[in-house]
């Protein structure tokens, strides 16, 4: 490979050499603007010839064999914003760069979105095309663009992300910098987030506990909005999306601006409306599967040179109809549902009506974030947030003695209030060390008004952490340590006697990370960490019947904390034509908390129900994810993405339940050359194959896992230049062959086939209301 490239370069140089004089030199020196120190390991690239080099210890660089002409020189250095300049070369030229290294001279928003402080874990930024393709669907659907991410579904409209087979409390979702606190414990409780709020979605794979909090054993999902504007203009964009399956429509708008006269102030308003009706499988409609969502948010920011403050408010309101065929009376019903190949009495014509059973969810977030520069190269951040979450669930039937029953009252009703405060102080390179120190506190209160499933509780958590990283050009070493304490005071009735158990948990999380960059094209990210998680209330105290799964779940108050020792490494290669990421990981759990089937069914008036107990075991989850994209012919790309995962119960020498099966997706993309009118035009066809999950524990399921299946999809998009705006248009399709299938990780697989073809139409209209420059 290298030889070919060398030959190619040689020929290129030669060819040019004949044409004109090509022996000019560009030299220069790069220094820190603040202290005049030379900056080594700065990347200096010349766009026109696709060449890059590094500055040496003296901050000097040299590029030879340049032809006469105009060049764009790009300077990239960790901790600095990228700088580009135009240089005209007609003789040997020398250029000196002074970089504002500690960033404080740049717009403050740049600091908030600090590009350099990436975790040592693999961080996968979800590509814009993947986000676009999932618009109008769930947040978890957008994340599937990353290898190793699967979803745990409850039908098509409730979807929880899974990182390396782990979900729920083991994943933290940071919504605009705030850890999302809702009712994460439920498998049918999707994250209460409007994906349209986020401009950037990324996934941190592997234990991220030290930085984000002790629960993040499996990783973290980061949702970030765009930086607030800092030029006097009012801009916005409108997204209109239509989905054929469910005949869903989504309208999402965003507007933002800042003021010329009051410098430093900026604002943003954003809102989304979504409505969808009954979804359709290849053969029949699913009764009661619509959704109605109304979300909005406001942001107000103020930035001066050394301080910044941001206020944010958002509200998420969602009503989700739950497929009525999945609400069953008892185990006999479940078995007969599985025996018949389609739902018995839950087929209905298309309708937008949302009937019982249903979920009504509301999530409110208030956040204020403040930062101040504490020196040339350090900043202090203080973030306070308040979250209020209401989750109401309505049973399929109102009781038989309905005269005395208030039908507007939910059968299950939880209200959770979370107040958090986070303080972090970070410093840039000081003798090659860079670090963050912080502390956080959370107070959380949960109350239930309807039927008992989990108790009332007051949860107080605090933690403190320190991370230091030694940064050199070819490698970075990081050590992070965190200490957390959690106090859990619960209240519930057992046989009409009030119980108020109090539990205290504390432990240390450690992460050691190593980034190795032998060349600019090849990087390795390796992490060894110890993480832990306190048991959640449902694992301790839940006791109730789940209508969707015809099982009784029982918590165990003796459950101890879950500890995880994990190793994860990623190799990432990137050149002009190939982009490849391969991750291998192994998570060893002490006291992995899981649901274990009981031996004796429990007798109720509705018949006998299997009982599942929360138990702990030692477990090992290992796997490999890969994503390889090759431009094998000019403008034509092949991408292969997939995963292998093995989840083992070491104590019982068995497999773990609910682990994703191995899968692979191959896609072919053709990108058209940009024209004056059409830009970023591409067409993609994809083929995904999901194997059968036969690695399941004995006696844990009523029905065998579904057969393997494949899905075919496509995506076509372009941007049309209209005046000075780029209008985005796209059409995509999922399951276009209308394949009949059921998925192992879909909780509705007992009752119905998964949904059929879904064609998405999307329109993105950016606009400018006012721009000073125009």
């Amino acid at each position: 490979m290298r030889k070919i490239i060398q030959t190619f370069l040689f020929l290129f140089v030669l060819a040019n050499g004949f044409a004109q004089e090509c022996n000019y030199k560009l030299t220069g020196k790069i220094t820190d603007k603040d202290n005049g120190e030379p900056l080594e390991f700065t990347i200096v690239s010349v766009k026109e010839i696709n060449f890059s080099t590094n500055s040496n210890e003296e901050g000097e660089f040299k590029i030879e064999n340049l032809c006469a002409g105009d060049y764009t020189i790009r300077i990239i250095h960790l901790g600095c914003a990228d700088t580009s300049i135009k240089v005209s070369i007609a003789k040997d030229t020398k250029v000196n760069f002074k970089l504002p290294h500690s960033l404080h001279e740049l717009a403050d928003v740049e600091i908030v979105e600090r590009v350099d402080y990436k975790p040592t874990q693999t961080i996968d930024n979800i590509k814009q095309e993947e986000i676009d393709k999932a618009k109008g669907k769930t947040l978890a659907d957008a994340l599937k663009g990353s290898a190793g991410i699967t979803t745990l579904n409850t039908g098509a409209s409730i979807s929880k992300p899974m990182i390396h087979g782990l979900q729920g409390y083991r994943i933290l979702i940071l919504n605009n910098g705030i850890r999302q606190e809702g009712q994460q414990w439920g498998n049918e409780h999707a994250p209460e987030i409007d994906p349209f709020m986020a401009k950037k979605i990324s996934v941190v794979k592997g234990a991220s506990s030290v930085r984000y909090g002790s629960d993040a054993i499996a990783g973290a999902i980061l949702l970030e909005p765009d930086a607030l504007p800092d030029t006097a203009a009012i801009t916005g964009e409108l997204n209109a999306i239509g989905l054929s399956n469910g005949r869903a429509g989504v309208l999402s708008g965003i507007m933002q601006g800042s003021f010329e006269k009051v410098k430093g102030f900026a604002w943003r308003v954003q809102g989304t409306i979504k409505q969808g009706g009954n979804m359709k499988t290849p053969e029949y409609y699913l009764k009661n599967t619509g959704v109605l969502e109304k979300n909005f948010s406001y942001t107000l920011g103020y930035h001066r040179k050394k301080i910044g403050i941001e206020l944010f408010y958002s509200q998420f309101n969602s009503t989700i109809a739950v497929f009525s065929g999945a609400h069953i009376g008892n185990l006999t019903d479940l078995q007969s549902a599985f025996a018949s190949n389609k739902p018995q009495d839950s087929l209905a014509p298309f309708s937008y009506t949302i009937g019982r059973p249903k979920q009504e969810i509301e999530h409110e977030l208030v956040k204020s974030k403040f930062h101040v520069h504490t020196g040339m190269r350090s900043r202090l951040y203080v973030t306070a947030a308040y979250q209020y979450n209401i989750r109401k669930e309505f049973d399929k039937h109102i009781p038989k003695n309905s005269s005395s029953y208030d039908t507007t009252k939910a059968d299950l009703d939880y209200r959770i209030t979370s107040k958090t405060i986070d303080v972090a102080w970070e410093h840039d390179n000081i003798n090659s060390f860079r670090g963050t120190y912080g502390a956080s506190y959370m107070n959380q209160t949960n109350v239930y008004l309807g039927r008992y499933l989990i108790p009332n509780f007051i949860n107080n958590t605090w933690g403190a952490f320190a991370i230091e990283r030694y940064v050199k050009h070819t490698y970075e070493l990081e050590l992070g340590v965190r200490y957390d304490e959690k106090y859990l005071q619960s209240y519930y009735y057992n046989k009409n006697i009030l119980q108020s158990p109090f539990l205290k948990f504390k432990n240390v999380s450690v992460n050691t990370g190593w980034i190795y960059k032998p060349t600019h094209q090849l990087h390795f990210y390796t992490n060894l960490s110890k993480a832990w998680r306190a048991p959640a209330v449902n694992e301790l105290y839940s006791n109730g019947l789940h209508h969707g799964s015809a099982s009784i779940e029982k918590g165990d108050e003796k459950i101890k904390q879950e500890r995880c020792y994990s190793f994860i490494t990623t190799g990432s290669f990137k050149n002009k034509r190939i982009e490849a990421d391969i991750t291998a990981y192994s998570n060893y759990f002490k006291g992995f908390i899981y649901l274990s089937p009981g031996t004796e069914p429990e007798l109720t008036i509705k018949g006998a129900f299997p009982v599942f107990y929360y138990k702990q075991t030692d477990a090992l989850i290992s796997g490999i994810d890969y994503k390889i994209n090759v431009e094998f012919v000019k403008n034509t790309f092949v991408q292969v993405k997939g995963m292998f995962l093995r989840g083992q119960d070491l104590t019982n020498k068995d497999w773990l339940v609910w682990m994703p099966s191995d899968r692979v997706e191959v896609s072919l993309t053709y990108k058209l050359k940009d024209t004056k009118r059409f830009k970023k035009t591409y067409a993609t066809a994809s083929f995904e194959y999901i194997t059968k999950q036969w690695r399941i524990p004995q006696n844990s399921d009523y029905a065998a896992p579904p057969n393997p299946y494949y899905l075919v999809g496509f995506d076509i998009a372009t941007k049309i230049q209209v005046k000075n705006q780029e209008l985005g248009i796209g059409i995509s399709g999922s399951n276009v062959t209308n394949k009949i299938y059921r998925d192992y990780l879909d909780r509705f697989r007992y009752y119905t086939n998964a949904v059929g073809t879904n064609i998405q139409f999307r329109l993105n209209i950016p606009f400018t209301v006012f721009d000073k420059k125009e």
Partner: protein
Amino acid sequence: MKAKLMTLVAVGALAFAACKKDKKEDPAPTNPAPTNTAEVITTMKIYIKDSITGNQITGSPFIFKDADGDGGSAGGFLPNAADSLITLNDTTTYLAEIILLDETKTPADSISNEVVTEGQEHMFFFEQSNPTGTPYTTMLTGSGVKITYLDLDANSRGIGQQFKIRTYGSTTGSQHPFRVTLRHQPGAKNGTFAPGETDVEIKFKVKVDL
């Protein structure tokens, strides 16, 4: 321009429309809701009497009770929690009636009245088999016990809250399963077991003596 306008309308409308919530007064966490407020079926009683003498047979009523409904503590038969055996004489006709109660309420709420009132949505099944004929009858497999529905809903379909048991000796002496299931079949009741979902399912046993 249209886009701007639509965005303004969308964002503006949401900002005002979506704010309906009922945060009013969340109760203090220290004071959880003590019992289920919604209705539960806690108890099933089957009264069986001799059709000629009118006397309740030995052991009648046969009771299954799950004091806290689904979940919580397990339910059981009374007086012997493990199972309940109904002993019948051969070549005899009995009249039987099913009573369902919600005993979490005081006084106990009779659910069986509601079942009969909403007879078009409910039906009892015996051993899950689809009854045949007019009136509906079901033969319990192998036992020589015949069940005849005595009540009808507005569509002239049996409900099964009241029924007749007739024995004519085939296999006496041995125990046979006698599973009573209440199916809730709103809008779908057609005299068969399949539609709807199960509200109650209790496995009694029947023995026929000479």
